[in-house]
């Protein structure tokens, strides 16, 4: 039995759609913030990484959620379930707190983390719905702590073939899939942190010369076949290239180090953070530290032995990296610890 009925999830999608639509298609964000890459339906790993890196809730808010959860169980309004599964349900009832004035001391004591997700929440992994439901619920509860960018898999032409449509249609119905798709169609495409770091799912675009260009895009929209929005969700870096070249993926382009430098200079940026590709250590630099790829689905599809990474950017723009390893490697590591203990 599923935890939510279709009407509840449809309502969640509608509300999230209105909220995200009210924000710009191009986000301007301030540090401190954490950046997370592709999730691809790996819900357990998403929870583990939020446990490791910190949730966008303070400890007091967690306690409040616990109370709401316990009260819901006692009154029998909700079926019995594991605590983490009640996050989407309970967080809807918590009103967003009044934004505290930004200061160094108070930010230290807030106790929560702010997040920017780079897209590709669905497809390939087994729990795409859980990932989307949790993140949109957190977005509704704490609009200024969670930001969700759009990946190439948040597109009808992709997620009908790679698992999301099949999952929603199997567990609920095709009408609910339309609700999710309508929500994806208003997601923003890129974000700039402190006018310094640009974040998107795919890569840079040759035709993006000014951030003012985003005003011409009207949402809701599908990811087009060509253009700036296609490049922001589909492009890849290629160290052997100089300029822009059509991609082997069949969509968008690959770009080389000279193209990246020209892009950064034109838009007065220092770095690009993107996802879209599996990298073995969870993160990988390109052209020095001008571009970094982040991937946050460990042991991707159960076939790769890759690590997942989360970037933390503090108020002074210092970047640190937290990595999360697949379970099988942790198993080996446990024996290593005992081995050292014996020595």
């Amino acid at each position, binding site marked *: 039995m599923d935890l939510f009925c279709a009407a509840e999830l449809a309502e969640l999608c509608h509300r999230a759609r209105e909220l995200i639509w009210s924000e710009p298609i191009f986000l301007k964000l301030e540090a401190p913030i954490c950046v997370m890459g592709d999730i691809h339906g790996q819900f357990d790993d998403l929870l583990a990484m939020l446990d490791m890196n910190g949730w966008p809730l303070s400890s007091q808010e967690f306690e409040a959620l616990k109370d709401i959860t316990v009260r819901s169980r006692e009154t029998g309004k909700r079926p019995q379930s594991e605590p983490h599964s009640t996050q989407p349900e309970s967080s809807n009832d918590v009103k967003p707190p009044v934004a505290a004035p930004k200061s160094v001391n108070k930010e230290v004591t807030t106790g929560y983390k702010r997040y920017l997700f780079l897209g590709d929440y669905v497809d390939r992994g087994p729990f795409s719905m859980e990932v989307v439901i949790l993140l949109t619920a957190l977005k509704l509860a704490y609009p200024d702590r969670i930001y969700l960018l759009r990946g190439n898999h948040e597109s009808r032409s992709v997620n009908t073939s790679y698992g999301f449509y099949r999952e929603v249609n199997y567990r609920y119905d095709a009408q609910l899939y339309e609700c999710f798709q309508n929500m994806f169609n208003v997601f923003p495409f890129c974000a700039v942190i402190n006018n310094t770091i640009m974040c998107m799912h795919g890569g840079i675009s040759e035709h993006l010369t000014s951030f003012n260009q985003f005003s011409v895009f009207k949402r809701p929209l599908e990811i087009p076949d*060509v253009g700036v*929005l296609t490049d922001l969700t589909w492009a890849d870096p290629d160290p052997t290239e100089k300029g822009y070249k059509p991609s082997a993926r069949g969509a968008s382009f690959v770009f080389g180090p000279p193209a990246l430098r020209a892009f950064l200079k034109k838009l007065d940026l220092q770095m690009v953070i993107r996802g879209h590709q599996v990298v073995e250590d969870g993160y990988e630099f390109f052209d020095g530290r001008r571009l970094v790829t982040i991937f946050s689905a460990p042991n991707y599809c159960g076939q790769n032995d890759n690590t997942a990474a989360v970037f933390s950017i503090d108020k002074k723009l210092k970047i640190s*990296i937290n990595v999360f390893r697949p379970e099988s490697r942790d198993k080996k590591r446990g*024996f*290593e610890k005992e*081995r050292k203990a014996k020595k």
Partner: protein
Amino acid sequence: MDHSELIAELPEIERMTAQERIALARDRRRLQLRRNDERERALPPPRPRRQRLHFAAEVELLEATCRADYAEVERLLNDNANPNLHNDDGLTPLHQCAIDDNQQIMLLLLERGANVNAQDTEQWTPLHAAACCAHINIVKILIQAGANLLAVNAEGNMPYDICDHEETLDVIESEMAARGITQSYIDEMRGAPEKAMLDDMKMLHQQGRELDARAPDGSTYLHVASANGYYDVAAFLLTCSVSPLIRDNDFWQPVHAAACWAQPDLIELLCQYGGDIHAKTKNGETPMDLCEDMSTKQVISQLVQTEARRRRLAFGVRDSRRQSKKRKKFESPQQGATTGDNPFSARGAIRRQSLRDRSGLTPARIEAQKEGADILRTWSKEDVSADVHSSQGSLQHQRESPSKRVLKYYFQSSQNKQAKPMSPDEWLRKLETNADDDLDTTPKRSGSTRRRQKKVPGDMSDSRNGDVRRQKSTCCCVIC
């Protein structure tokens, strides 16, 4: 002043004296500076300087080392970056230089206080990495900087064990000989962790403490011995009635740990004492599923076949009658005694083969190690035999099979003792004569090969879908 005005002034200036010209120039300069000040004051205030982006120190230093950027590495070290910082794998910049054969940055790091014997999470030192990659100049630099030639990594290998390049191996072995390192000393160093654990186990046993105490994750001493390949520790624990079927919190039995860490002789030992080669973990994994080493997989396959054969024989009427007779004499469930000598010799052959495949040793080193291992094993067996004699009379029947095995080992070891121990010179000479027979089965360290793997795009198959999207020329979503 305008150009035309300056030109018009020229005749008048020519008629001036030198002092008058200097005074005029000074007046003009004063006027120029005053105008510049006025212009500067009128300008809007300059924009504040943008915040500079920077990474955590370990990320920056390791990334610059990977790119072989000498200037940036030097700048970071001058800014007091710690040269011994490492990533989550324990990889230090010195490891990275050894993997990439970067001598220039390595010398700079060593000069700035990098630890030449830093170990990553698998206890590889930079010398392990350089020896494995056959970077001979890096090996020389590390040796000169005081690298530990006898450092043992998580797989029980010293740098010279994993070096399959002749010239590089010569450099390492020449240095070992120059330091007076003998084969017996090498064996002693290699076996030190196991000996320490064996001593601990015996002390616990004498004190009457439990030998199946558990760590927080549910693992026991037998799990640790099986994972590390501590044959004598495991044999001691098993003869002291520790169950080979004991499970940790993830339902891993010792045989799973031995399979995961490619310890074929431990797998044989555990099955010999009643371990289950088909045991499953909480995730439903069998030892064969967890094993990644091909030679260990072969050993497991043979054990599976042996057990299948034994199971088939159990259905025969005559065989079951014979087993019932055996059961009257020995109530122990051990089945090793019923198979006589043949499985013992076959098992010995398997062990020798797996030992060679596992460590990639040359035949000469295999012989030398076997001699040392026999001596060590004999010593531990004698102690086990003493324990057997000191136990109660009612237990003597259950221990009879192990004591028989001990006696056989004793006879073999007495023959080995008659042979003269090889001096270092003889050992080196034997190595040279067998130089042409070097095996190329040395496994490369996964870390170094991982660095060279090409990254796989996660959405490669999306290209097919992209082609479909290309054909939608009439898509209304296209934005012009």
